[in-house]
């Protein structure tokens, strides 16, 4: 029987002899992840399950990133309890100032390799598909079960193969590719499926760009968004990890539920207008929309690639007097590299705020939430009503070129208005 990539990964992590979409199986985890929100709820559930110790401390990792630095006393207590639990269980803990936003961090730190299964108490665990891993988001009770038993129940998903054809014009990034996919299949189009990204346009993407694509697979309802591992993956993992892995891909005659073709040559930078990631329009159609804030960061687009793009726009320019620009390097190591490259200086010179790595305002937690009537352009992944603060605020999702250009112009513009030509 030919198999899809996701079926091969799941087959290697289950006792079932063969699997097909719709089957319910138990799947073994290579890594179990939670954070300061999902973790403490899961720990209580794990206790009630009657499990005292985690199944394997080597396979469990916790990251403090949502309410960090603590926004109030209650969050501080939550962060404290997370840290104490990790100490008592002997599991890896990335504390404040020692890590960053979980999904960027775990890739950077070598936790994620192709062909593995990563259960995360965060919906954007699908980001790990960028490295060919079945990373998938689960709730706290699922995570409690994973912590206790090292496995979770899973309905075997079908596969929607997405073929990125052609080459990207300037200013087209991973963000635009995934927004094009969501526009095509809809915000629930990937339910009970994984997305699999192939084609010359997929292979040409750097890992940072792939992270941006896979990150928003869940915004199409999908369980993860897989890039088959290739030479780019191997080069990224070199020196980051000692975990063994092999490159797998779907068999030639594997059954796909659907095949979607996205032509890149004619693509404009895209924005998702309020209040849905599926409300996608070309940046030209949003031209002139006045904004109050720009937020460049989060687990989708706080990479060095994003910061470099933003710096290229902001170098020698000023953030519009009416606008706040908040820039959030996703991890400490990205922050330091940005510092070495002089990017942080560019941001500060332009009048932007540089935030410590945190999920911060992306989920409306703190560090830059929006007032009623305010409008923001962000490189984040959700623009639901009220997501970043007031229900009367509006969020436009876009790539870092577009976001930085909006910061300077005070309104949404095509980045070509500032930069005649850049490397794609």
């Amino acid at each position, binding site marked *: 029987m030919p198999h899809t990539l996701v079926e091969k990964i799941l087959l290697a992590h289950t006792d079932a002899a063969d699997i097909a979409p719709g089957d*319910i199986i138990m799947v073994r985890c290579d890594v179990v992840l939670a954070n*300061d*929100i*999902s973790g*403490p*709820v899961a720990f*209580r*559930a794990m206790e*009630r*399950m*009657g*499990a005292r110790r985690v199944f394997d401390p080597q396979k469990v990792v916790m990251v403090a990133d*949502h*309410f960090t630095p603590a*926004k*109030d006393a*209650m*969050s501080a207590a*939550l962060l404290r309890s997370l840290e104490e639990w990790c100490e008592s269980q002997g599991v890896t803990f990335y504390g404040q100032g020692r890590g960053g936003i979980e999904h960027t961090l775990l890739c950077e730190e070598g936790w994620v390799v192709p062909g593995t299964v990563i259960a995360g*108490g*965060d*919906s954007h665990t699908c980001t790990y598909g960028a490295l060919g891993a079945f990373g998938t*988001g*689960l*709730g*706290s*009770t*699922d995570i*409690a*079960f994973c912590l*206790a*038993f090292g496995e979770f*129940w899973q309905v075997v998903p079908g596969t929607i193969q997405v073929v990125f054809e052609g080459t990207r014009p300037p200013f087209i990034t991973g963000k635009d590719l995934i927004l094009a996919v969501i526009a095509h299949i809809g*915000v*629930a189009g990937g*339910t*009970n499926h994984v997305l699999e990204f192939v084609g010359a346009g997929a292979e040409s993407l750097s890992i940072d760009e792939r992270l941006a694509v896979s990150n928003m697979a*869940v*915004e199409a*309802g999908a*369980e993860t968004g897989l890039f088959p591992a290739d030479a780019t993956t191997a080069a990224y993992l070199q020196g980051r990890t000692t975990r063994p892995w092999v490159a797998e891909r779907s068999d030639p005659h594997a059954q796909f539920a659907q095949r979607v073709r996205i032509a890149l040559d004619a693509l404009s930078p895209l924005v998702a207008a309020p209040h*849905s990631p599926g409300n996608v329009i070309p940046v030209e159609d949003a031209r002139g929309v006045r904004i109050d804030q720009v937020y460049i960061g989060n687990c989708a687009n706080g990479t060095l690639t994003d910061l470099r793009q933003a710096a290229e726009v902001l170098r020698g320019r000023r953030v519009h007097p009416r606008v706040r620009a908040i820039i959030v390097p996703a991890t400490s190591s990205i922050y330091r590299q940005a510092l070495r490259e002089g990017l942080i200086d560019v941001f500060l010179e332009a009048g932007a705020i540089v935030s410590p790595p945190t999920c911060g305002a992306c*989920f*409306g*937690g703190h560090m830059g939430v929006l007032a009623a009537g305010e409008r923001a352009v962000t490189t984040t992944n*959700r623009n*639901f*009503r*009220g*997501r970043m603060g007031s*229900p009367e605020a509006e969020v436009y999702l876009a790539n870092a070129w577009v976001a930085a250009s909006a910061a300077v112009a005070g309104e949404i513009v095509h980045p070509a208005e500032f930069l005649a030509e850049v490397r794609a």
Partner: protein
Amino acid sequence: MIFEGTALLIARDNVDTDVLYPGPYLNIVDPQQMKWYLFEGLDPSLRDRLREDTILVVGENFGAGSSREHVPLAMKAWGIRCLVGKSFARIFYRNCINLGLLAVPCREAVDAARDGSRLRIDTDAGVIEVDGRVFRMPSLPPFLLDIITCGGLEAWARRRLTTG
């Protein structure tokens, strides 16, 4: 199993977990405290309309977005035991099952229901009655029914630990 109750309609599609339970309240760990923020970003007055036998009747892709289990935990804290929807987002659906909260996808039943409709769900017979009209519901896989019957994944896990 049989669930009977009164419909409370949330007749919109793609209702996300951010509006069902906004981010600022995610630092709460006690479901009895969580319940005061359920529906906060959607329509807080829905909380006042919850009754002991409320069955939530919802649209397409209900519970999209964040994996926050605070949403079904808060529903459970209000005493909700069942949802009927046109369709559910994957993580939200898992969370419901894991908490022993029955979530039934059935478009015809949702279309037939009004606020205050009487609903009766019979998982053994595979039917939903809406004000006396009978609709077939997709059969729940035995594995998921087992979790629900146990009262959720916690109890299911306890059984697994004690029986080895």
